[in-house]
């Protein structure tokens, strides 16, 4: 109880509530731009960002951007309101809203970027926030694994996407999206076309969960439900669709584009639809139907006729609406009953009338009943499928079967939980108003849009299709096109869906037997790959990072001696070494003292003696620095020696005495001796050889002259450190700070360990 009250104290609800003003403001702003966009005048904004690389911070609001931006802000607003109740009392409530709106802005940036590199940055940001939000309940191992999986899959796709973008930049000389359609013919003919296309598709397919990368999306349901409603149904997973739509006039229309998109899209759609039947958990069902919907959109973007593209854009809108509403409903059911298993709940409509109404509207749209926008979407889908350039029959068949399965799923979603006999689990009443107002508004919109399809077509779909279709088109969405093939197919869909619903238990049983029996799944391949990487990393860490300081030193010094010695002996005439530089005779005494100290260090049996010997060597080196005119270095050397002595003195008390080397280690002993003498001789010879040549003093002269004039300092070393090369110093002190923190943590950890 104590813990909860302190948490509540920390999670003030108002920051989250007020953050709803962000999507609200953006939404209102976007709505006011709609007439301008509709009349075909895109809104552009550009700053210079990295002019040297031809990369600009360029934003463009056109038809397709507006459609996505409206979906992002409108659903973002409703999800924020929803989450106000869903996240109530959560200790990390404010962090949740921070991530949510950071994602919202990244997603908006993605759909408004007019520069490929900028788009990539936003693309990666959406992956990053998706990672943070899937892993939001980071205490759960499942959430962490799912988050990592989503990040790895979408991240790899993102990197390939960057490669594709760079290749496009190389071929066309521009990163501006709005200029790329003009280069379409050039790209199609180019020998890199196939590589570019594959990279782009890898990015889009991983993000939009297309087969074979579909497996991360159902796992992403570990995220809090508002996130599933927002990121993993309405917005982020549509980023791949957005990219395909954007690139349609640039890379699209070729046989390989059409074949790949239609075949993979159709397969993904059928796969998602079939698996959704086999599932009984609400969010899992919804995730699978999202995969199906993304497959359908990909399939239609494979076509190049106006109806195919219209179908893709219309279904995008239709799906974002009903799916986000249904996710919010799933969360509300979970919130009120504590379960999302549809077999455990029933008859909720009596207790949760508003939620039930919202579900009814959303599922009717999902099933494609007349008067709902889903019906219009389905009509145009069949029209689009029949005009595909490749495999029109297959496209129509896949659309028909997956739509029929969708109808069955929609019926299951509304009838099982809300009507029928109440089951074991009873709800604690209607959900808080924040949790049903959003779904109800969206459900109402599904109906409203269905009643005024020409308005939707005029304001939302037509500008989007115009932006991605090569030639101008007029989009007419109508409630009734007359008695034709699409209408017939719509009717068949509903009939088929009805029979699927009746036989759903049988279907579920067969599919649940079939799915685990698959010999290879792409998720299995992913897991295998990750496990292989981890075991390889463990193996090489055990081999290379085994914690033996001696071994590290042997590798480092040995590698230096061998590689530097090899080059040095091969290039420098050794005779030069017989001409060592002049130095005062009394320094010979110093050298003798240092050599004696080395002898003591090597022979010492006590650590104190060894440290003192090292101190003598260090002091000797400092004197050498002073004599040869480097007072700063000499001073530093002395101070470092002093501090080392103090630190070693502290550590010393805890170390065991030096153990005499047993004879068995004679080989090791010889190795040490060889390496020490070898490196010493090499470095000395190297330095002598260097002094034989005239050193290029350009830089030294520059510093000598500029130090006082430009930087008002006479100590050149210091002026270089704090002025001329201060950026380097800044980096170095950052490293110092970070390593000190790490060292302190290690020392502390050792102490707290028993």
């Amino acid at each position: 109880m104590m813990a909860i009250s302190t948490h509540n104290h920390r999670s003030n609800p108002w920051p989250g509530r007020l953050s709803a003003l962000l999507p609200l403001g953006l939404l209102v702003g976007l709505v006011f731009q709609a007439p301008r966009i509709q009349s075909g005048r895109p809104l552009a904004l550009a700053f210079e960002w990295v002019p040297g690389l031809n990369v600009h911070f360029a934003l463009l609001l056109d038809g397709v951007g507006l459609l996505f931006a409206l979906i992002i802000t409108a659903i973002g607003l409703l999800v924020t309101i929803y989450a106000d109740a869903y996240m109530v009392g959560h200790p990390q409530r404010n962090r949740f809203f921070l991530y949510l709106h950071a994602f919202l802005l990244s997603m908006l940036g993605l759909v408004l970027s007019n520069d490929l590199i900028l788009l990539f940055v936003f693309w990666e940001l959406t992956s990053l926030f998706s990672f943070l939000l899937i892993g939001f309940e980071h205490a759960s191992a499942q959430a962490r694994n799912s988050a990592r999986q989503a990040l790895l899959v979408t991240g790899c796709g993102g990197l390939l996407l960057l490669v594709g973008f760079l290749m496009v930049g190389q071929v066309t000389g521009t990163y501006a999206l709005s200029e790329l359609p003009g280069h379409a013919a050039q790209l199609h003919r180019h020998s890199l076309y196939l590589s570019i296309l594959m990279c782009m598709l890898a990015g889009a397919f991983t993000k939009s969960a297309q087969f074979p990368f579909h497996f991360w999306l159902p796992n992403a349901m570990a995220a809090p439900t508002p996130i599933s409603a927002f990121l993993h149904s309405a917005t982020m997973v549509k980023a791949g669709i957005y990219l395909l739509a954007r690139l349609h006039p640039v890379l699209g229309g070729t046989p390989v584009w059409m074949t790949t998109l239609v075949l993979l899209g159709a397969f993904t759609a059928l796969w998602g639809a079939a698996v959704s039947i086999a599932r009984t958990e609400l969010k899992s069902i919804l995730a699978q139907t999202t995969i199906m919907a993304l497959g359908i959109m990909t399939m239609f973007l494979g076509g190049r006729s106006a109806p195919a593209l219209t179908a893709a854009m219309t279904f995008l809108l239709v799906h974002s609406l009903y799916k986000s509403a249904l996710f919010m409903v799933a969360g509300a059911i979970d919130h009120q009953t504590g379960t999302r298993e549809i077999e455990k709940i029933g008859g909720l409509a009596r207790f949760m009338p508003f939620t039930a109404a919202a579900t009814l509207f959303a599922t009717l749209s999902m099933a494609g009943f007349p008067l709902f926008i889903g019906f219009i979407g389905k009509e145009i889908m069949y029209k689009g499928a029949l005009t595909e350039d490749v495999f029109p029959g297959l496209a129509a068949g896949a659309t028909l079967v997956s739509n029929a399965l969708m109808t069955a799923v929609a019926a299951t979603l509304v009838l099982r939980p809300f009507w029928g006999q109440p089951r074991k689990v009873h709800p604690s009443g209607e959900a808080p108003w924040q949790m049903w107002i959003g779904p109800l508004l969206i459900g109402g919109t599904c109906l409203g849009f269905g009643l005024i399809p020409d308005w939707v077509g005029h304001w939302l779909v037509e500008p989007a299709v115009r932006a991605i279709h090569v030639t101008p088109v007029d989009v007419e969405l109508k409630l009734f096109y007359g008695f034709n093939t699409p209408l017939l197919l719509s009717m068949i869909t509903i009939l088929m869906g009805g029979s699927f619903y009746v036989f759903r238990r049988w279907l579920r049983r067969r599919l649940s037997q079939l799915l685990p029996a698959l010999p290879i799944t792409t998720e299995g391949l992913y897991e295998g790959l990750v496990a292989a990487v981890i075991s390889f990393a463990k193996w090489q860490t055990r081999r290379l990072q085994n914690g033996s300081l001696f071994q590290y030193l042997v590798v480092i010094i040995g590698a230096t001696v061998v590689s530097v010695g090899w080059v040095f002996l091969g290039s420098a005439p050794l005779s030069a070494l017989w001409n060592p530089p002049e130095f005062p005779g009394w320094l010979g005494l110093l050298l003798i003292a240092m050599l004696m100290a080395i002898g003591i260090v090597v022979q010492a049996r006590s650590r104190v003696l060894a440290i003192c010997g090292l101190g003598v060597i260090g002091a000797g080196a400092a004197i050498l620095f002073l004599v040869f005119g480097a007072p700063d270095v000499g001073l530093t050397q002395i101070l470092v020696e002093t501090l080392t002595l103090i630190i070693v003195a502290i550590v010393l008390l805890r170390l065991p005495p030096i153990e005499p080397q047993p004879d068995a280690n004679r080989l090791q002993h010889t190795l040490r001796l060889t390496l020490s003498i070898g490196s010493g001789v090499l470095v000395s010879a190297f330095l002598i050889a260097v002094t034989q040549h005239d050193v290029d003093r350009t830089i030294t002269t520059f510093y000598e002259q500029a130090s006082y004039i430009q930087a008002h300092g006479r100590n050149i070393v210091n002026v270089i450190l704090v002025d001329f090369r201060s950026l380097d110093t800044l980096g170095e002190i950052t490293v110092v700070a970070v390593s000190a923190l790490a060292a302190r943590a290690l020392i502390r950890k050792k102490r707290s360990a028993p």
Partner: protein
Amino acid sequence: MRSVILKTATRLVSALVMVLAVYLLWRGHHAPGGGFIAALVAATGFALVALSEGPAAVRQGLRLRPSHMMGAGLGLALGSGVIGMLAQRPFLTGVWWPPSGVVVGTPLLFDTGVFMVVLGAILSVLLALEET
């Protein structure tokens, strides 16, 4: 191992060492010295106190945690760079006041940042070791 002689000597010597450190920091721009060296000198002073009176005395005398000192130092170094930007010059460009007759410049601020980071780093390790 609390020796009275060491304790008494430490009072005097550590104070002198601190003064020396500040002096080295100040004169570093024209003569041997500077933030890094000054931090090493100051660290020896604190190490002396830690040896004679224990790490708690150092912490009390510092009033500032070593890790916070590092953070403040990094902030100071960054901030001195931002001053250059405010003067419409590239990040980390030295700015002097007054502009001609040079008294103080942002490099001194930067060097003070280096001083604090290095001192904080050494002390955080030293004190952690002492307290083990």
